[in-house]
Every structure is written in structure tokens, then in C-alpha cells.
């Protein structure tokens, strides 16, 4: 794998090295500004409008540039890098089609509040608005799916804009920021003066909470008989896992972590109930529905969590902690709103928190329920079950890998059967539900975490949406371990068609897909196929032991469904439990 050439340097060292005031081109300013922000890895794809930028990168070794095989691969990789490291992910694409190929990735990051700086080229300022070759109004196209965006008009603005973009992307509610650089601007010379300050009148996220509100929450906890902590991605993003643990233990409140919150609280902890919602645990859903106090910490009451809103947590007083005031009260009426950064809020709250003494019976009930109804499936010795495969992956990686997934059944099985104990170990497209995300995001995660095992769990559908990035794994020896749970069908769509559309299976058959082993080998990636437990374990262990990327295709049972399941329009206590014994 490519060595990380840029080691972490202090701000002063960076300025010393890259901050010289001199006349340089916009392209050189861009590269120096990125280095000043501490960027060590960029994912990109060149083209006409970014030729000056790539020319400036010729022979450049101060950060890694990974040439993906599709812009979509580049942005999902940047996303995986950002989610797994907490740093800003960066990608570069050319104008027009290069830029529009980023759109899905930008929307993915926006929905899940992932900090990205997305750099696109554009046609020269003199050509903008003329329908020039490879011109697209990418700022306009992405306005609804970016936290902010810039069209750079003068090279001298670049240092300020880049510094602002990194600040906006990675503070407050994080998100993608787009910088569109016309070709002439990237070649324009100006005096480079690095920016170290940000002055934005319209942008002052509230970090420290209102103490009175925090006290109200603490009093409500003391009174509660059936309290629940609902912990979301915000807890991961603010780096608050230690505070969440301290707060939960001090108050003794059972915890459910949302899909994006997995890892924010140790899965094996006696207070942990698993994740809630459509395919979550029975215990977590019942607890929410019966709770008299629901403390939401950095989750946004997504419809996959709440089910039918009208019947959601009907007895609960609602506390909502969120850095984004617009999330509070958006879906669920809130009794105690707390605007602030999760870490800051919990640091303040832990000090005054008392044990929820009235909730002893509740804790006991939840322990019983956890034991009574864990996730379950009917295992088989004839057919390979996807749930078994995920459990085997968990066992062989000691629960310590970074796991990325695509979207669909395998994603839910990964969430159910790969319990996490650490934050930033789980990379999944929760909000947008982007197929094609799983594999390239693993490449980014591996670039950001060269010392960790990175596993990408995919279905046979999503794997075909970005499989071209096998090339960069092979060429750069990026040792991602790819599991493909091949059931030869679009499984989640099949499941809905079976359960809700009367077995009318419409256009879901993926038989005739390429031989994934041959596909991987065509790129020079080691590959294995497994159809039973013995083969599966042998192949997977060989893949893990291999010093480089590896693909294992697991041929799994076609008709397997994800349970439990809350069908759309039902409240979350109305769960189909499946037929597992």
C-alpha cells in the first residue's frame, strides 16, 4: 500500500513549509492550501478543466493522490476516509460530466453529515453560461445537497475560500462543501497569502448548550421510570463515545444506538439494546414505545427509526440534543430541546447526572428481553446463510475491523451480526441509502487507517455499481478485504416484493452477473468463492492472511429475509419477527 508521505505536522510547521507569500498560480495555491489544512490524501480524476491543477500535481509527493476509475469511486472513497478518520475527505473532478458524477456522493455525504471538500473544475469564466464543452452548473445542481458552495472568480480568493470550506465542512453539523474552480482561475497568478482566520457572520454554530436546558434534562432523568437513550451519528461525529459511556453508566439508562450511531457505545455493554427501527432489535423498539423519557443524543428521528410518526414513543417526554437546531422538533415534538455539540452537552451533563433510581424494574425488564429475543435466524448446513457469514467475519476479525457496507439486506445483516465496540469503525450510507458506496468507501477508510483491517461487505447488486475500483486496490496494493454476499438477486427489493407486493418479483433477478472471482482476477486482485461453511471460513481466512486486497464471493441462500422488520406505515412495536426458532 502507498505509504502516507504526509505525517501529521503542527500548524506552525505547515505554515513554515507551505505558507510563503509569493506569486503563484491558482492551482499551486489550491495544493498549498490543501497542505495547510493537513490534507494527506486526495481522491480524484483529471480532465480538461482541471488540467492546470493536475499539472501542478506533476511529480508532487506531498500528499497522496489516488486515481480512481470513476468520479463516483473518488467521492465515496473520500467519504469513507472522512467517516473513519474524522478528518475532511477531499476529492477532485473535472467540469461537466466529472462534476455530475460526484452528485450521488455529495448527496450521500450531505444526508449523513460527512465533512467533505469537493473540488471541481469548470470552464473558463469567459465561457461560463455559453453551454461550452463540458460545462455544467455544478454549484446550482448541488445547492440542495451541499452545506455550502463556492464558484471561485479570482485566484486571490482561493486561500480564503479553501480555509472557509474546511472550517464549514468540519464544524457545526458537518457536511460537504463544493469549490468550483474555472479553468482560467486555476492558471491565474496572484500573491499567495494563507488564511488562518474565518470570518463568517452568518455561521456561528452553537457548541455549548444552555445550562438550564441541561438541568431540565437531568431532573427529568431523576423522575423517569422507563428512560431510554437514543444515540445517533452525532455522538460519533463529535467524538463523544467516552462521554456517552460515562453518561449512560452514571445514569444507568439503557442505550440504543441508531444505524449511524453504531460504535458510539460498546455493543457488549449490559445497557446496550442494539439499534432501533425498521430492522432493529425488538428490545430497543419496545423500549422506545414504552419509555416515559426518550433522550435523543445526536440522532435526527429518521423515518426508518420512528416508523409511523403518529404512534412513535407515545408515552415519552422527549429530550433532543442536536447541534442543528432545525432537527429539533422537525419530525417529533420535543419537550426539552438542547442545542449544542453532543460532547459539550454530555460533558456538562455528566457532572450533575444522578442515577435514575426509579428505573430498576425497567433495567431488569430490558435485560430479560435482550436475553429472550436477540437477533435470530435459522442456520443451515446445506446452504450458506448470510447472517452466518457476517458472524464468521466478526469472529475472524475479532470484532475490531472497520466495516463498510453497501445498501440492502447485507447492510442490515452486517449491522445486526457485526457488533461494534469502537466508534468510526462502521461506514454505511444510512440516509441516502446509496448502492455502490460500500466498496469504494472501504478504499478511503483503508487509506485513512493503514494499520487497521478494513472489510467491505457488499451484495452482488451494489458491488457491480463500483467494481471498477478493484483496479486501484490492485495497483496500489490497498489491502481491503471484500466480502460479496451473492444471492443472485436484489435481495431487499425481493423481500419487499415477497412481503408487500404479493410475491410479484419484478426485475430483481441478477443471475448472469459476472463471475466475481474472475472479475477480481481480471484486475489482479486475489479472489475466492465459497458455497458452504467450511469453504467460507477457509477462503475468508486466506483473504485476511493475504498481504493485499482480496475478494471472497459467498454464494448464499437466495430467499433469505431480514428480520425483524417493521413494514412502512406501522409503528415500531409492530414487528414481523420471521420464523427463526
Amino acid at each position, binding site marked *: 500500500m502507498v505509504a502516507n508521505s504526509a505525517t501529521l505536522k503542527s500548524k506552525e510547521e505547515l505554515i513554515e513549509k507551505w505558507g510563503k507569500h509569493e506569486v503563484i498560480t491558482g492551482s499551486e495555491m489550491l495544493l498549498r492550501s490543501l497542505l495547510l489544512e493537513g490534507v494527506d490524501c486526495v481522491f480524484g480524476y483529471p480532465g480538461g478543466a482541471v488540467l492546470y491543477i493536475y499539472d501542478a500535481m506533476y511529480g508532487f509527493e506531498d500528499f497522496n493522490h489516488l486515481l480512481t476509475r470513476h468520479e463516483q469511486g473518488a467521492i465515496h472513497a473520500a467519504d469513507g476516509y472522512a467517516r473513519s478518520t474524522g478528518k475532511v475527505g477531499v476529492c477532485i473532478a473535472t467540469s461537466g460530466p466529472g462534476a455530475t458524477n460526484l452528485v450521488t456522493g455529495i448527496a450521500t455525504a450531505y444526508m449523513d453529515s460527512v465533512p467533505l471538500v469537493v473540488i471541481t473544475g469548470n470552464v473558463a469564466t469567459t465561457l461560463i453560461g455559453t453551454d461550452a464543452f463540458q460545462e455544467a452548473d455544478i454549484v446550482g445542481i448541488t*445547492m440542495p445537497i451541499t*452545506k455550502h458552495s463556492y464558484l471561485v472568480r479570482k485566484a486571490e480568493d482561493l486561500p480564503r475560500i479553501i480555509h472557509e470550506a474546511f472550517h464549514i465542512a468540519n464544524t457545526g453539523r458537518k457536511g460537504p462543501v463544493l469549490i468550483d474552480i474555472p479553468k482560467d482561475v486555476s492558471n491565474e497568478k496572484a500573491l499567495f497569502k494563507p488564511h488562518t482566520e474565518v470570518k*463568517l457572520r*452568518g*455561521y456561528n454554530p452553537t457548541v455549548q448548550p444552555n445550562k438550564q436546558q441541561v438541568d431540565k434534562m437531568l431532573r427529568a432523568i431523576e423522575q423517569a421510570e422507563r428512560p431510554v437513550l437514543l444515540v445517533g451519528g452525532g455522538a460519533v461525529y463529535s467524538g463523544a463515545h467516552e462521554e456517552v459511556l460515562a453518561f449512560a453508566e452514571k445514569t444507568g439508562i439503557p442505550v440504543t444506538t441508531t444505524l449511524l450511531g453504531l460504535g458510539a457505545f460498546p455493543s457488549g455493554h449490559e445497557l446496550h439494546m442494539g439499534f432501533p427501527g425498521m430492522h432493529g432489535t425488538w428490545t430497543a423498539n419496545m423500549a422506545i414505545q414504552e419509555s416515559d423519557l426518550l433522550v435523543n443524543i445526536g440522532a435526527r428521528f429518521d423515518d426508518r427509526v420512528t416508523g409511523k410518526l403518529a404512534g412513535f414513543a407515545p408515552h415519552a417526554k422527549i429530550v433532543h440534543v442536536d447541534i442543528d*437546531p432545525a432537527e429539533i*422538533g422537525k419530525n417529533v415534538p420535543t419537550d426539552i430541546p438542547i442545542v449544542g455539540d453532543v460532547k459539550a452537552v454530555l460533558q456538562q451533563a455528566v457532572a450533575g447526572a444522578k442515577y435514575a433510581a426509579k428505573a430498576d424494574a425497567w433495567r431488569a425488564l430490558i435485560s430479560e428481553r435482550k436475553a429472550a429475543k436477540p437477533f435470530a435466524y435459522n442456520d443451515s448446513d446445506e446452504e450458506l446463510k448470510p447472517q452466518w457469514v457476517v458472524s464468521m467475519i466478526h469472529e475472524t476479525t475479532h470484532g475490531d475491523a472497520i466495516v463498510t457496507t453497501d445498501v440492502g439486506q447485507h447492510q442490515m445483516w452486517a449491522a445486526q451480526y457485526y457488533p461494534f465496540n469502537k466508534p468510526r469503525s462502521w461506514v454505511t450510507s444510512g440516509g441516502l441509502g446509496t448502492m455502490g458506496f460500500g466498496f469504494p468507501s472501504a478504499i478511503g477508510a483503508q487509506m485513512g487507517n493503514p494499520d487497521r483491517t478494513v472489510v467491505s461487505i457488499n451484495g452482488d447488486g451494489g458491488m457491480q455499481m463500483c467494481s471498477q475500483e478493484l483496479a486501484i486496490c490492485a495497483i496500489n496494493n490497498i489491502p481491503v478485504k471484500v466480502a460479496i454476499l451473492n444471492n443472485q438477486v436484489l435481495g431487499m427489493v425481493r423481500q419487499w416484493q415477497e412481503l408487500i407486493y404479493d410475491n410479484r418479483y419484478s426485475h430483481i433477478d441478477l443471475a448472469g452477473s459476472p463471475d466475481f472471482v474472475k472479475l477480481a482476477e481480471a484486475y489482479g486482485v486475489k479472489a475466492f468463492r465459497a458455497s458452504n461453511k467450511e469453504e467460507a471460513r477457509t477462503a475468508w481466512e486466506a483473504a485476511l492472511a493475504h498481504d493485499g486486497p482480496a475478494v471472497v464471493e459467498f454464494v448464499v441462500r437466495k430467499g433469505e429475509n431480514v428480520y425483524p422488520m417493521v413494514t412502512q406505515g406501522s409503528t415500531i412495536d409492530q414487528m414481523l419477527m420471521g420464523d427463526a426458532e
Partner: protein
Amino acid sequence: MNGRHTIAILVNDQPGVLQRVSGLFGRRGFNIESITVGSSEEPGLSRMVIVTTGDNHTLEQIEKQLYKIIDVIKVVDIGSGPMVARELGLIKVTADPSARPEILGIVETFRASVVDISPNSLIVQVVGGSDKIDAMIELLKPYGIRELSRTGVTAMARGSAR
């Protein structure tokens, strides 16, 4: 409870800022009855006035979502207190010489003015609250309105408070 709300938004005078604000209303399903933009008392900042309808929950969401736009500096629900709201309308009305005196009578009653005269039409300019302009239009309809253009409401809270 559904109601009409008048919101003043102070924004950076940046290219695309109108698109950011109007796009937000569009994609989140907020209604725009009218929108006006112009310079404000501070160089580099513009003030938009948007008239919208919705319940209190919608109004709260509109304000919160607007604040998420980096170029939005301040959002004020000016309709929540006493305010001055004005709109300008230009109405081109058919006016043969025989009909002119009647029309001029209406114009005078509304303290409107005639800003253009041609052989068989007049342009009437009327300033006031939206209701007043609605009423003026109703009264001129029988004569034949050839063209109508309204600015939308601009507004300000009464008193010294900003």
C-alpha cells in the same frame, strides 16, 4: 393554525443567494406568496422579504432552515409584531376618452396616480398594502385590464427596534 407570515431575511449580497433561499423554500415544500430583494442599510448585505403561509411549526422550520444557509445573516418574523407592509402595482387599463373621468375618480379615491396615458389606455400606479391593490384591481376590472404587474410586499417592523 395556518396563517400568513412576513419574514425579513438579511443576506450576503453574493451571486446565487436568491437561488439558495428560494430553492430551500421549493425543496422543503414551503410556500412563497411573494418575494422581494434589494439592498439594505449595510453595504454588502441585501434584505429579502418573503410572504409565506403555514402553521407555526412550518414557520419555525422555515426560520431554522434559513439560518443553515451560510449567506443568511439574520431572519426576522416581522409579521409577529406591528409592521408596515407595502407593495406597488402597475395596472394598464383600457380607457377610452369617455371612460377616463370615472377611472380618474377611482385613482383619486385610492390616492393612486396615473403614470402614463395613451389614446385608449392608462397606466395606474398604486402603492399600499396588498389588500388595497387587490381592491383597486377589482374596481378597474370592468374597464378591461390589459396588463398587471405587482412588486410583491416589502415590509419593516414599526418603531425604533431593529
